[in-house]
């Protein structure tokens, strides 16, 4: 019951989602810092001299036309793609270009993929269990037991994501929107310091979008959130600062109003109306 009230009191922060202690050092500046990053695929510059700074606790929206390089940027931050040049820092201490995916994930960077990827053969509950912040080395995982506290946390996330009644279902049979929620739930279980969320509301109803908006704005503050989204209505409802990516670099940055009146941005979106 307590969870329910917590969820409805929108101005309160969900303390059970508080990030676990991350070694990230943000005393002297931003939590994420990309400088002069360039990536080419077969000569095509998907990311071209990109500079981006995310402050601790910030909620940032990133928009841009298809192929602008938004997903590729997330690939670089999470260690999936190595840039040709440039530097990427998590806080002032961690050079992400020297780390692999599991290390970056354990540092406290969580990611939701554009195409929802959940473990289809496992149940909803088990998907959340695997995502849970824990010692993820081989032997501790082998001997891990599910404590009541773990179960409560999973229950809380099930409640928040509206998957409570589906907890025993195989994730593979969920609808597209439910998979989106499950992936958001997995992200919450990880309790990351920085969340990278790629198109979270694709396939969701208006109502669900609203819930997602509440959830993400509720997280910001304690956690830093980077949201990539095409749905302008959604971006408008959560945005504080918006960054527009175009052809691999930053075209404009600022408040939603400032950005949408920027002639360069209007040109890129070709009067689609933003």
């Amino acid at each position, binding site marked *: *019951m307590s*969870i*329910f009230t917590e969820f409805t009191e929108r101005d309160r922060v969900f303390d059970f989602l508080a990030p676990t202690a991350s070694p990230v050092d943000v005393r002297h500046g931003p939590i994420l810092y990309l400088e002069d990053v360039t990536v080419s695929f077969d000569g095509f510059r998907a990311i071209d001299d990109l500079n981006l700074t995310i402050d601790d606790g910030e909620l940032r929206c990133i928009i841009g036309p298809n192929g602008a390089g938004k997903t590729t940027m997330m690939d670089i931050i*999470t260690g*999936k793609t190595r840039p040709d040049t440039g530097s990427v820092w998590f806080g002032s201490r961690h050079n992400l270009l020297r780390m*692999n*995916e*599991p290390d970056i*994930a*354990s540092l406290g960077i*969580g*990611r939701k*993929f554009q195409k929802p*990827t*959940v*473990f*289809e*053969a*496992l*149940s909803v*509950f*088990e998907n959340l*269990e*695997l*995502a849970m912040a824990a010692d*993820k*080395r*081989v032997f501790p*995982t*082998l*001997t*891990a*037991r*599910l*404590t*009541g506290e773990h*179960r*409560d946390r*999973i*229950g*809380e996330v*099930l*409640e928040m994501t509206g998957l*409570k*009644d589906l*907890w*025993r279902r195989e994730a593979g049979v969920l609808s597209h929107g439910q998979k989106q929620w499950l992936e958001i739930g*997995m992200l919450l279980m*990880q309790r990351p310091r920085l969340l990278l969320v790629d198109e979270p509301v694709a396939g969701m109803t208006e109502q669900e979008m609203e819930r997602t908006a509440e959830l993400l704005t509720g997280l910001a503050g304690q956690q830093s959130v980077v949201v990539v989204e095409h749905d302008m209505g959604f971006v408008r409802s959560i945005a504080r600062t918006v960054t527009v990516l175009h052809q691999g670099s930053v075209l404009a940055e600022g408040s939603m109003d400032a950005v949408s009146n920027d002639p360069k941005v209007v040109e890129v979106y070709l009067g689609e109306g933003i």
Partner: protein
Amino acid sequence: MTDSNRMWLTRPLTEGSTRLFLGLLAAAMTAVVLMHLVFPEGHALHMSIYTVTLMGKYLCYALLAVAVDLVWGYLGILSLGHGAFFAVGGYAMGMYLMRQIGTRGEYGHPVLPDFMVFLNWDQLPWYWHGFDMAWFAFLMVLLAPAALAFVFGYLAFRSRVTGVYLSIMTQALTFALMLAFYRNEMGFGGNNGFTDFKDLLGFSLLTDGTRLGLFIATGVALAIGYVLCRAIVTSKLGRVSVACRDAEARTRFLGYRVERVQLFIFVVSAMLAGVAGALYVPQAGIINPNQFSPIFSIEIVLWVALGGRATLYGAVIGALVVNYAKSVFTGIMPEAWLFALGGLFVFVTVFLPKGIAGLLPKKKRPDDDDSDTTAQEATA
């Protein structure tokens, strides 16, 4: 959900399907022992010691199939080289058996096995030392396949080799080892391998009692191997392993070291295969490089596919059914066996994609037992 709070190693023992498996195995083994001991020779129900040993060999294959199912069914690594680990375990046991022969060989040399005397070697190669001691040899049965799997897996998984490429590499591994073991200079008896074993732990291999004992030991090893694999797949690591199988990249982004999970499970599987090989050799009475042949490794995968992947008991069923069919078939028309096997495989892939195990009543998910407690606790 009381089960998940148990120690990971004892958790399978609370599961219905594991108890059923162990019960059936124990019953079948008791039946075999009784049919051999109680009914006199000539009686319709009498089982000859030859047949008992044949059953023992089938059980070795069943353990091998369980090992393959662990890596293929639950981790998604299609190993076409598990015969190599079986053979390495078998050779480790064979070396012990050879040294047990002592002066009873053709040449009567107190230390050197016959084939070394025949090659005019005057001393034991360094890697043969220690194999006169049972504890050392038995340790090597586990460690030699483990070391081979570790080195191979470390290199392959670290470079993120997966899928077909990995399968081809495992084939290459077993093929290379076969060629190596054919060579006399390797010191493993060349193409003749090892044979003419005399005794094991002081018991003569020619007596019925020892053979019956080996049969029982194999059944116990299968039971332990099965429970161990079940313990792994029902642990959180087992779920991570399935996650690696289905979405490797995603698993990495959750912070799991996929290559270490793969390495761990691959090594455990290789050790089980080694134990199966070690129990096979004294019952078959011979080990030679043909055990490394790529075809054998492919056959193991067929057993698992026929029985049903990712169930463990399916692997056991597959190994028993196919090998029984094989001995019946090779008795009637040996040339047709490979065609029959191929035909059976096509039949199963087309009509029984989940193998024989898919025909059995579906096992309930372990979570089903405790209804909605989790969800209720959450709102409480």
